[in-house]
Structures are given as C-alpha cells and as structure tokens.
C-alpha cells in the first residue's frame, strides 16, 4: 500500500468534454481536493473548462510518468472522449484504474476499424483472446460488424492487468474484474449521488402538464433497452393512462429510437431531449414521475442516472441485474426479468403510477439511501482508501485460464446441445459435432418455446426479420443476458455461440468441434443448453 498518500494524479476527460466520466470527475474534484493535492492529467490541458483550470494544476497525459505523485488514478470509459486516457492506461505508469465500463471494445473498434487501423485492431483482439480474437478481428475487418461481439469480447483484461488495483462501482463489476484480471486487487466504491437541484419547469421542455412522465436518463444506447421501455409505454397508453416518455440524453441507437416511436405511434407521447448537461440531467430526474433503468447486455457500467434519480426522490424501476442488483430492495421497483419484459415493465409502471403513496415511499427510501450511503464525501473517502490500499507494485501476472467472464452465469460444464431452426439446420449442426435436441411437435423453432436454453441466438439478415412479439413468448425463462439477436454470417454465428458459452463458464469442451455450418433460411434460431440432452 502507499505509505503516505498526499499527492494524486487523476487522468480523466474533463468538462467541457461531453462525457459522463468527465462530469463524474468534475463533481468529485472538490471533495478529492480537500483530502489530497490533486494534479489533473488530460489529453489537451488548453481545452479544459477554465473554472477547473483556475483551481487545479493541469498537465498533459504524456507527463504522467514524470510527475512527483504518490499514485495515479485513471478513469476508464468507453466513449471517444475517454480514448486518450485509455491509451495512458495502456502505456502510462501503473496506477489505480477506476473502471466505469468493462468492455471498451466499442472504443477500440471505433478507432481501429472506424478510423482504418485494422492491424492494430487485430493485434488488440489477439492480445485479449488469442487465436479466437484474431479470427473475430478478421471477420470484422472484412466488414461483418455486429453489436453482440462488442459485448461478448470485452477488452479490459489487458488494460487492467498491468495496474496496481482496480476500483469499480458495483459488486457485479468487481466479479468481472476478478475474472479478467485475477490477482489485481479490486475495490467497490459506489457511484456517488450528486446534490439534487430544483426540478425543471415542464414547459421548458415542452412536456405535457397533465401526463405522468416516465424517464430514461443518459444516452439512449440499445443496451438500455429503449425498445422495452417504449413498448411498455405503448401498453400504458392503450390502457388509457396519460403518460409521456422522456429520453433525457442523446439518441445512441443510430436513429432506431425515432423509428420505433413512429412504429408504436408514440409521437405524441415521447420526447428525446438530445444531450443534456449534468445539471440539466439532474434537474430532469426531479421533474419525472418515474425513471426506468434497464440494461442488457450489462458490461459492468456504472449508472450515473441511478444515484441521480435516487437523490431526487424519484421512484426508480429497474431490472435487478448487473450493477442494479446492488440497490437496496426497498429503494426501487424491480421489474421482472426473463418473462414478458414489455408487459411486466408496463405492469410495474402502471402499479406505481396508480399508487402515488407507494411511489412516494419508494422515492423517499431511495433518497434516504442516496443521502446516507452515496454522499460524495463518503464515496470519496472510500475511493481514497482504495487508492491508498493499492499495493506498491503491480501484482504478479496470473495466468488467465479464461479471461472472459460470467456474462450469463456460471454453471456446470458439459456438452453443448443445440437445436437448429429447422430440420436442415439441425442436420447441419449435428454434422458439425453438436448434440442436437429435437423439438417434438414443432415444425420449426419459430414456434417452439426455448425456456430450457441457457443461450438463445437469433441470426437474422436484418431487423425486419425479427418478430418481436414471438420473441417475447419464446424467450420466457431465458436470462436476458442469454438472448442475442445478431446480424452475422454463419461463420460469425459460430464465434458468437462459442464465446457466449465460454463467457458463461461452460468450458470449451466440445466447442472446438464447432465449425462453420450452413444454416438454411433468413432467420435462424439457435438455442443452446449445456449438459445432457433431456
């Protein structure tokens, strides 16, 4: 541990960068500066908000190695604003990494492929995943670029393993770090709650005065499942409830959000604000009647909007998975997972909105929890403690037998059983060495329930081939993290299945037999169960 921690270098994006990490660091800085002498390291010191520059010494990231400090605290995020800091984590002096996100594949993919550095992208994947990573890189370089792989093949392991310690915001994230960087100490420091600010005037946002406002806060990326939230709002409207959904943040779905709003006929019941400042987001949290926080797949992200919502006293509805599992049970409404997601969320919201007294109690308990446990002073104390407790040296390299983590949940190893989408698919899979489970009485998988499966993969040519209503029924009983819809060729489907099974801790036994197989049809369901066939 650090004998005397008095001088700390903090490497992070800072305002005016439009990044949740930047807002987090800026908000925490006054408290941190009361305890330690803080030197800020950023990609471009001249670009930092002048109000921060006036009170702090700010240096370039390239100066980190020559600073006279007791420790370096890096903030790792997954957005382009975090790119230079990620490079410093990769190459700079060993320190403590506060990991706000445990994938960073999005970032590496954007830089490596989006900006045409394929060789470096391939090297990054090979470093993280060996031969399988190289094969995946080749496919993505060739243009087959889906979203599922970004979640399945996270890239934090090589970054974290060269540092003294890691800090994360949730127990769930800590579990992932232990798998990806075994031997590196990991501490959990909850995401602090910011000070509440007065709510916004609804008229300021052009919001209907009489409707119940349901919010989704922060950038609306697909993993926040805006499709489920919008579907639930549609059902509430159909039930005659006066509701309006407010997405407080940028559309991170490449336009899918507006198309979905249009398809569901929610044009008069929805608002997407675009990017909001930290203060405006906090004000919006207090304006809403309920906030929904869903996430699948979960990449270990911390959720700034959750403590923001809690301290505002606004009731929160969430799936009790990933980091949300750390929430006190009485401080939020847990929407059921694994069933009719849209219907269950609609029911949870309906019940909450119909019972203002209950909503008030949930909000009040969340606020009490936030004020007591998530006070910025308390969280900064814990963060400083974690940095001080980090070993002086980088822990010895621990061989990473399987560096990827429990995306679905660890279960006993066994052979994989696969059901193909139709007889031809089943024959092809069987020929490739899989045990194939026949589905009695079902002419095709599209009509067969797959609740028995640990992993369900839909391979589709385009979204128009997805029958979402059918999926809701078929997926009943399958953990949300085990449901994948991918737009990949057959070759990449094999990788996705193999990686997902490895992630789940099923072991690689039998997977080596998995070779590219030709599957018939445009839309193919592959359901995987590990263990003996039933």
């Amino acid at each position, binding site marked *: 541990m650090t004998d005397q921690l008095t001088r700390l270098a903090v490497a992070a994006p800072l305002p005016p960068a439009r990044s949740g990490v930047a807002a987090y660091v800026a908000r925490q800085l006054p408290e941190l500066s009361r305890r330690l002498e803080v030197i800020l390291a950023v990609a471009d010191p001249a670009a930092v908000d002048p109000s921060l520059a006036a009170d702090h010494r700010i240096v370039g990231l390239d100066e980190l190695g020559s600073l006279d400090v007791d420790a370096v605290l890096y903030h790792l995020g997954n957005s*382009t604003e975090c*790119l230079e800091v*990620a*490079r410093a984590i*990769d*190459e700079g002096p060993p320190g403590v990494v506060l990991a706000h996100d445990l994938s960073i594949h999005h*970032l*590496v993919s954007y*830089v*490596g492929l989006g*900006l*045409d*550095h394929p060789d*470096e*992208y391939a*090297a*990054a994947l090979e*470093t993280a995943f060996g031969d399988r990573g190289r094969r995946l890189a080749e496919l993505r370089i060739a243009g087959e670029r889906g979203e599922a792989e970004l979640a399945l093949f996270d*890239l934090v392991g*090589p*970054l974290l393993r060269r540092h003294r310690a890691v800090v994360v915001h949730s127990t769930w994230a800590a579990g992932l770090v232990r798998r990806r960087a075994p031997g590196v100490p990991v501490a959990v420091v909850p995401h602090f709650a910011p000070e509440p600010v007065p709510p916004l005037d609804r*008229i*300021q*946002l*052009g919001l209907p005065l009489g409707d119940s406002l349901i919010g989704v806060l922060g950038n609306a990326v697909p993993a926040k499942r805006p499709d489920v939230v919008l579907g639930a709002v549609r059902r509430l409207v159909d039930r005659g409830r006066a509701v309006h959904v407010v*997405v407080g943040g*940028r*559309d991170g*779905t*490449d*336009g*899918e*959000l*507006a*198309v979905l*709003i*249009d*398809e569901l*006929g929610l*044009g*008069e019941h*929805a*608002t*997407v*604000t*675009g*990017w909001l400042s930290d203060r405006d987001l906090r004000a919006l949290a207090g304006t809403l009647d309920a906030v929904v926080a869903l996430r699948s797949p979960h990449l270990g992200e911390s959720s700034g909007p959750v403590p923001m919502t809690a301290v505002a006293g606004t009731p929160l509805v969430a799936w009790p998975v990933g980091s949300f599992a750390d929430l006190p049970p009485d401080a939020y409404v847990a929407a059921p997972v694994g069933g009719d997601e849209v219907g269950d969320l609609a029911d949870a919201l309906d019940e909450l909105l119909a019972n203002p007294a209950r909503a008030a109690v949930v909000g009040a308990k969340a606020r009490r929890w936030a004020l007591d446990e998530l006070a910025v002073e308390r969280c900064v104390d814990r963060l400083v403690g974690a940095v001080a407790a980090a070993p002086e040296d980088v822990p010895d390299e621990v061989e990473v037998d399987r560096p990827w983590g429990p995306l679905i949940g660890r279960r006993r190893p066994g052979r994989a059983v696969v059901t193909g989408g139709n007889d031809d698919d089943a024959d092809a899979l069987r020929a490739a060495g899989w045990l194939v489970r026949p589905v009695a009485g079902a002419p095709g998988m599209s009509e067969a329930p797959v609740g028995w499966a640990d992993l369900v993969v839909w391979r589709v040519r*385009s*979204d*128009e081939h997805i029958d979402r209503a059918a999926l809701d029924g078929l997926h009943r009983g399958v953990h949300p993290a085990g449901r994948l819809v991918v737009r990949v060729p057959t070759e990449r489907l094999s990788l996705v299945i193999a990686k997902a099974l490895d992630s789940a801790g099923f072991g690689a036994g039998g997977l080596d037999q998995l070779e590219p197989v030709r599957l018939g049809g445009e839309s193919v369901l592959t359901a995987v169960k590990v263990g003996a066939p039933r």
Partner: protein
Amino acid sequence: MTFVPTAELPSPPPTGAPHVAVSAAGGVFPVGAVGFWGSRLDPDDPAVGVIAAARGTAVVRRSGRVDTAGPDAPVVRAPSIEVRAVRRLGGRWWALGDRRVVALDDGESFGVAAGSIDVVRHGEGPVGVDPSGAVRSPDGAVLDDPGGLDGELLGAIDGAEGWWIVARSGTVLARGGAAAHDGVDTSTYPHPLTAVGPTLDGRGLVIATADGRLHARGTPYPGGLPRPAASGAVTAVSPVEAG
C-alpha cells in the same frame, strides 16, 4: 505493445450537420445530434415540409396546417393555400401553392407560373419550376430549361449559387452556376427517391430514398433512418436551423 489503436480522432466528428426528416403521415425523424420533440400522425393530410430547430419542429401539411412540437419550435405562419412543397430560399422558408409562393415567416407572397411543382430563386425572387425542370417566370416564359430531364421531377433545391434539379431517376442537374454533384445511381441502388432537401450553407443537397436512407451531395453525410418508417416514405428533409 500498444493495445489501444493509435488513430487520431477526427475533428470535428465524421458526421454532417443534423437534419430532420418527415414521413408522409407526419412522423418526425431526427438525424444526427438533435432531439425528438414530438410528431402527429395524420395520413389524410400528408406532410409536405418540415422546418427544424434545435428544440422543436414545424411540420407543414398539404392543407396548409402546421403542426409544431417542442419548446422552441420554429415560428411559422400557416399558409392559407394547398401546399405542394416547402422550400428554403435565401435562408427563408416558403410554401408553394397553385400559382403562388408564400413566405412562412411573414406571409410575403409572389405569383409563380401555372403548373409549377417546385420553386427556386432566379434573379430577385422565387420563380416556379415545372415538371420538366424548366424554370418559368410568372407569365410562363422559360427562364432556364435543363432540357431532356430523364424522368419525372422529384424536386428543385435552391443553393447559395444557382439550383439543382433532381429527377426521380436519380439524376442531379446543376443549374445557374451551382456546383455539379453526383446523382443517385438507381441501377445499383434500387430504392426510389422520395424527397430532396437543402443544406444550411447552400453548397449541397440531401436526397431521401424509400429505404429510409439519406444521400448527401456536396455536404457531409448526416446519417439516416435505419429502415423505412412505418408512417410512410420520407417526404421532406431539412437541416436543423442554427440557433
């Protein structure tokens, strides 16, 4: 070794200025960094134009009705005409009706030639464009004839210099000193063209196709709809007005 690729981030980001598209029934689709402030679907009164601000939109209907949404929706005077097209000329928005073009800010109006289906600037003010792409004075005299437009006229877009004539076949003709831009090759991109819109700087144009895509010409690619909209094909696309 370096684990994180070394490429420099482009500055500014590799996307064009934000635009807003509107579908036939009035569905509104923000493209790029702009919010969604609401839409009103009305299949019986097609949307023919959209004016977009950072925090609001105004959708102009065939009947002349204007549906606004958002806290800072553009202030638009509803034109008391049946509207064929809504165009941006010299930084102002105009509605084209039968023999008349009306400014949507103050109601100023000009006569245009009978049979005009679009409008551009020629000389001092707005003049009509006929289905062949010819620009005509209010009395019907031909002021400019592109000649041999291969297919039905999709629309005409006024530029900082000159204008562009866009055919449904994908051809883009630069006229009046406008810079030449490629069209849309519908032999390799087999989706019908459905709308065309301007850019703020008047240097290019944006063409919408039936699959929801936008095609930028003379301007950075702004993005597009990920798939066709349920409320109909895109009938108008406009840049988000600054400020």
